[in-house]
């Protein structure tokens, strides 16, 4: 089996899966070179594999080289596989619709033998037979008539019993729930997920479901989302967006930043720079006259005030406002961000911090109380009110809110630091609000964890935001040190 250089339009075969996997891994900052790809491909050819686990382990052994990368690989695996399976199913459907005789389907060259190999490892993740099953459920006529309370109870008891009863049964319940909510379907997966969850009364911390663990709710939500996406895909023929990085974020725990010392050093340098930032604006000396000093100076010219001396500008102490995105899409770099924030909090007495996802909440107090970045992360997720509906970043909403909230906080002495990936999830980026916020601040820095290459890809609005601020790539202590240097030489 040799890797074909370019993926055919439809990545159905094993090579397509490999390339997709490699792409997802690279996005998660796991270096996968062509050497690894070749090895992986050779490994698959050398093995007689018949189950998903073998393929997964063989690929993990060839494509990842550290324990950390391996973890990321495993986190991505399901997502990529599901995506590939879904696409294969979609193609099968299209082909069936187009009629067997029609050979003009793009990607036909890879389509002859490959679908079997492509789908074999996907069996575990469930072939989306959504059409047939859902139709059957609807055909009974009982699903819509089925008592909502009954359904809600069934789901809740299934969840509280844990996955012991098998995910198949839970999946059936999920399908019933989707069917029941069919009339009010909005077509936006995220909204529907929330609606169905509300309908069934499944919410974290909700009064009726105290016994449900976070993990169970998450599992249910994930299942619901997948099912909705699958059905939607089969209906509209559009692939859902890949959520590889977000997916990953959910599975990675808060680890230790490897180079905390580096971060501290860089912050120290940054502090020196920002300490003098207030002095840098040197214009014509204007403003109110310092009468005492003017008169004293006029004594030298016989009392004629030749030199008008204005009131001396007091050196301005820099005031820092940090806005930190803590959503899942940046959680691979969130630990780094939080390390930066807690280092900043140690270095600057006048730092105020807001954390945000969909809503912003001030976490200045938390920053002062938390000893480590890990603790800070835990407490923000627990105590700060940063998300209310979907849990995905909504920059527009956040900036609109902050433009009002920070009216009295941000002024020309303020340096605004934003830590985030500028990925709006397709929502309104709120450029006007951001512009007004940035123009009110003396200086606006945006630290983006993504490399420049990814800016403006997909839902990233980096360049549009960058018009109003200085945006820098910053994901490691080295970046931060480079940034501090850049700022000081400027």
């Amino acid at each position, binding site marked *: 089996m040799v890797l074909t250089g370019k993926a055919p339009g439809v990545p159905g075969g094993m090579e397509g899966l490999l390339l997709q996997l490699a792409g997802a891994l690279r996005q998660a900052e796991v*270096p996968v*070179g062509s*050497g*690894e790809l070749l*090895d992986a491909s*050779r*490994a698959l050819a*050398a*093995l007689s594999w018949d189950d998903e*686990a*073998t393929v997964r*382990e*063989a690929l*993990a*052994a*060839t494509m*990842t*080289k*550290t*324990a950390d990368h*391996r973890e990321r690989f495993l986190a991505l695996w399901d997502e990529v596989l599901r995506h590939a399976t879904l696409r294969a199913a979609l193609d099968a459907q299209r082909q069936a619709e187009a009629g067997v005789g029609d050979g003009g389907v793009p990607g036909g060259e890879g389509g002859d033998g490959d679908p079997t190999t492509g789908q074999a490892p996907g069996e575990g993740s469930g072939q989306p037979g959504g059409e047939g099953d859902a139709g059957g459920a609807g055909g009974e006529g009982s699903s819509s008539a089925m008592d909502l309370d009954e359904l809600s109870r069934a789901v809740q008891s299934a969840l509280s019993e844990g996955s012991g009863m098998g995910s198949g049964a839970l999946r059936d319940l999920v399908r019933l729930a989707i069917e029941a909510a069919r009339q009010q379907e909005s077509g936006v997966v995220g909204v529907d997920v929330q609606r169905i969850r509300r309908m069934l009364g499944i919410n974290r911390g909700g009064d009726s479901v105290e016994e449900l663990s976070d993990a169970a709710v998450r599992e249910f939500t994930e299942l619901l989302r997948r099912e909705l996406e699958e059905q939607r895909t089969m209906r509209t023929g559009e692939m859902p967006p890949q959520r590889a990085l977000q997916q990953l974020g959910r599975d990675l725990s808060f680890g230790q930043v490897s180079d905390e010392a580096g971060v501290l050093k860089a912050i120290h340098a940054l502090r020196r720079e920002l300490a003098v930032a207030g002095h840098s604006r040197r214009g014509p000396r204007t403003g109110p006259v310092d009468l005492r000093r003017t008169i004293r100076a006029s004594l030298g010219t016989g009392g004629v005030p030749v030199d008008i001396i204005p009131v001396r500008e007091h050196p301005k102490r820099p005031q820092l406002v940090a806005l930190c995105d803590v959503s899942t899409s940046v959680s691979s770099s969130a630990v780094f961000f939080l390390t930066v924030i807690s280092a900043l909090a140690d270095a600057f007495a006048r730092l105020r911090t807001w954390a945000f996802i969909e809503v912003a909440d001030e976490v200045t107090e938390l920053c002062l109380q938390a000893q480590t970045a890990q603790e800070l992360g835990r407490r923000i997720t627990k105590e700060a009110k940063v998300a209310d509906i979907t849990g995905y970043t909504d920059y527009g909403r956040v900036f609109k809110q902050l433009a009002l909230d920070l009216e009295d906080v941000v002024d020309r002495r303020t340096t605004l630091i934003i830590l985030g990936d500028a990925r709006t999830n397709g929502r309104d980026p709120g450029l006007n609000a951001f512009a007004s916020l940035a123009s009110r601040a003396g200086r606006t820095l945006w630290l983006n964890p993504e490399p420049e290459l990814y800016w403006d890809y997909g839902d990233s609005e980096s360049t549009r935001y960058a018009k109003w601020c200085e945006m820098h790539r910053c994901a490691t202590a080295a970046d931060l040190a480079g940034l501090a240097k850049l700022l000081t030489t400027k």
Partner: protein
Amino acid sequence: MDRTKLSADLREAGYLADDRTVLVSALSIELGKPVLVEGPAGVGKTELAKALAKVTGRDLVRLQCYEGLDEARALYEWNYRAQLLRIQAAQGDGWDGLKDDLFAEEFLLERPLLQAIRSEKPVVLLVDEIDKADQEFEALLLELLSDFQVSIPELGTVHAASRPLVLLTSNAARELTEALKRRCLFLTLDYPSPERERDILLEHVPELPEAIAFRIAEVAAKIRELDLRKPPAISETIDWAHSLLLIGADSIDSAVLRETLPVVLKHRTDLELVSERAAQLLGEPIGRGAGR
């Protein structure tokens, strides 16, 4: 490569491998790629190499890495004493007659790496604790691992007479270079589950009653969960099993645990910590924190 057979063979060689280990070993044999085995000390990384040597019927060539390891110790060295003798013996021949055979192979001292690739019979090469060696040493390995050849300035390039099966072990004490990692397959080993450790114990100490073996494995797993300077290795639990057998203990209580603990733990602070929590570890309902 038949994995079921490899698994059975490994077991016969006294190594109980999990599926992942078998899979990666099979891949390594099939693809001829080195394996980088990473994991805490005492999970059987070195044993894996020994078992693979046994299974494949090859000799094991082992290179133990340490700080300051250089190519004279790892690769080759000229036997300068013999060279001096040669010069003395050839007095009068002049340089021209001498220089050709002064750097002949008979004066070459083979060190493990060279030995591994010059061997007529294929061998298993174990580069143990690569993370202890300096980063420069890794550079030395690169040529060897990707092309199985070594360049010796005086002799030219030595190609491998046979392809060795290479295993590198690392305790992840430091980050290895990307270049080295890229040339390897990656395998992480961790402490075994109590069930697997029980099987390992029974494999090595056949006289041990099964119930005790499982108990040992369970307690060992709990001890490893504590914050210790050096968690017990598998080899140490095997020693422990031996000593329990010797003193004729038919169950593990806190007294027995305290007595035999020095077999498993080698640091005073670790010993103190575990003895302190002995009752808790064993799940005995005595002491202050009864049952909790």
